[in-house]
């Protein structure tokens, strides 16, 4: 009879010198580390290369922070802050430039008393394909200069043209991140941010894509054309569908539907 059942003899499998932290490492351990440590670094680089290279396309859009951009046009408050710029070269002879405050609080922008006023605004341009937004500081005198020159077309509110009822499926995006501040500014990992931006008054866009890759970006309003209520927040960034009406205001397509018309798919 030798050792009783259950007795472990570590010396059987482990015959080498022991590594003790406060002493010089034994030769076996040095040899082990000489191989293992470089392998670890290569593994770290390889794993992070793999993760980084497989990330989704960050999407179109740019946030041109390196320069200040000047836009001259008429200030409009509703349904969201924007500038209407006359541009004979553009389709329908004008361009809409949405206005967003720095950060996520558009409600800090207050210029109700300047509705329709021709101004020169300076800020940072956010641009995604033919969609534009100007990011400006909260204090008006830091970015807004009234201009007195005559600007034909700019002070005239464009007509609202109905393109008829439509049933659309897509995603509710916060226009600021989506137009280029965060790339990628979409998907579940961006849901909380997008919802916070829309809560802060950043205009929401409805991003509609067809199977063959064509896409359309529509500014979202309620059924009457006013700002969309906060009931939309839980649905932000998720795939949804809604019955509504498409209208064109100048160069901008808008989707009119009440928040409760949106259904998660």
């Amino acid at each position, binding site marked *: 009879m*030798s*050792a*009783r059942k*259950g*007795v*472990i*003899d*570590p*010396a059987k499998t*482990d015959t080498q010198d*022991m*590594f*003790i*932290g*406060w*002493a010089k*490492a034994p030769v*076996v*351990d040095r040899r*082990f580390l000489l191989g*293992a*440590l470089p392998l*670890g*670094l290569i593994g*770290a*680089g390889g*794993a*992070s*290369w*793999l*993760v*980084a290279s*497989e*990330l*989704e*396309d*960050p*999407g*179109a859009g740019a946030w041109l922070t390196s320069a200040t951009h000047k836009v001259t046009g008429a200030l409009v408050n509703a349904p969201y802050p924007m500038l209407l710029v006359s541009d004979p070269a553009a389709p329908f002879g004008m361009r809409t430039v949405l206005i967003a405050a*720095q*950060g*996520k*609080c558009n*409600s800090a922008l207050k210029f109700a008393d300047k509705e329709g006023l021709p101004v020169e605004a300076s800020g940072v341009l956010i641009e995604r394909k033919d969609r534009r937004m100007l990011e400006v500081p909260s204090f008006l005198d830091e970015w807004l200069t009234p201009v007195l020159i005559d600007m034909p077309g700019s002070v005239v509110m464009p007509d609202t043209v109905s393109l008829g009822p439509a049933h659309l499926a897509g995603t509710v995006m916060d226009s600021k991140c989506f137009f280029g*501040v*965060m*790339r*990628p500014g979409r*998907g*579940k*990992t*961006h*849901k*909380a*941010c997008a919802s*916070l*931006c829309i*809560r*802060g008054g950043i205009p929401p866009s409805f991003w509609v894509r067809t199977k063959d890759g064509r896409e359309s970006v529509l500014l979202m309003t309620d059924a009457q054309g006013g700002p969309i209520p906060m009931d939309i927040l*839980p649905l932000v960034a998720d795939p949804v569908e809604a019955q509504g009406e498409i209208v064109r205001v100048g160069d901008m397509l808008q989707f009119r539907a009440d928040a409760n018309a949106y259904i998660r798919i």
Partner: protein
Amino acid sequence: MGHQYKAIQWNGNKIVYDLYLFAFVAIFIGVFMFVGLQTHASGHSADPVVLAIRALGTAAFSLLTIILAIGPLARMNKRFLTLLYNRRHLGVVTFLVASAHFGLALFWYHSSGPLNPFVSLFVSNPLYDSIPGFPFETLGFAAFLIMMAMAVTSHDFWLNNLSAPVWKALHMLVYPAYALLVMHIVLGALMTEKSMTYPIMTAATFVGVSSLHLIAGLREWGADSGMKQLKEKGWVDVCAPDDIAEKRAVITPLPKGDRVAIFRYDGKISAVTNACRHQNGPLGEGRVIDGCITCPWHGWQYRPDDGISPPPFTEKISTYNVRIEEGRVLLDPKPNKPGTRVEPALIPGAGVVS
């Protein structure tokens, strides 16, 4: 120097360890940012801040995976003790990288909005009643709190002041934290990204860590279960003195679940608890060095006959009574109070040295 938390100090091995750790994190994040910032084929380029959030999160999760793998690896192969030795710094660095991930995510996604960032973290995605829609950030936050508690109490000062069982329980929370983080990834990044690389990598790390623990655990469980039959009181017949290698120990489980390390050295036999006073390292896997039992984890030492650390240290572990009868080592399963001196059993014919 009566405080045990001063027992471990800076030394060459720790500096090498930390430099290496730094290089590891730098390479991980550097490669991630370099690759991620390349313009995609579509001409689109990623936002550096979003990329940094991802790089830091991925690095922190990888480090935590390594931390959890080192324990069972060191039980299976002693060479991994070199990595276990300074695991606490690894833990603190992991916490710092995770803090940077958290801080940047909070700043980029939740700050300068209409809500307090910490409120936004919990209410901006309200889909708590949905599994695929669940606000994954809250899971990361819960894991972060656990990691913070562990990092803050990682110093031996706390081990001393919280008492070993409380400290150990606190540090066992690393497993729930890891589970929370796996869900943080599954319900976050995996819901957004389309490449199959991510589910495969996440599953591989999770299965890898779990099976390492399972394998290491099964080995010890197999040894323990043999002992379950041993119900009778009185002394336990462990083995013959020659079954123990010189300056080494065998480990025997006791019916109550304790483990005893029985050392042979210089023609004598002494028995002490298998659990190191420091962080429960397996003393029986250590050696007798300079006349002292030396723990394989961080090198704490105890005299074999009374279980007291050699001066200037004063740490104490439990000793057990041993005898040699008819060529067998017999052990009294009742532990003595830590620091109780027990006359070593002399091995007949061994010719006691010293």
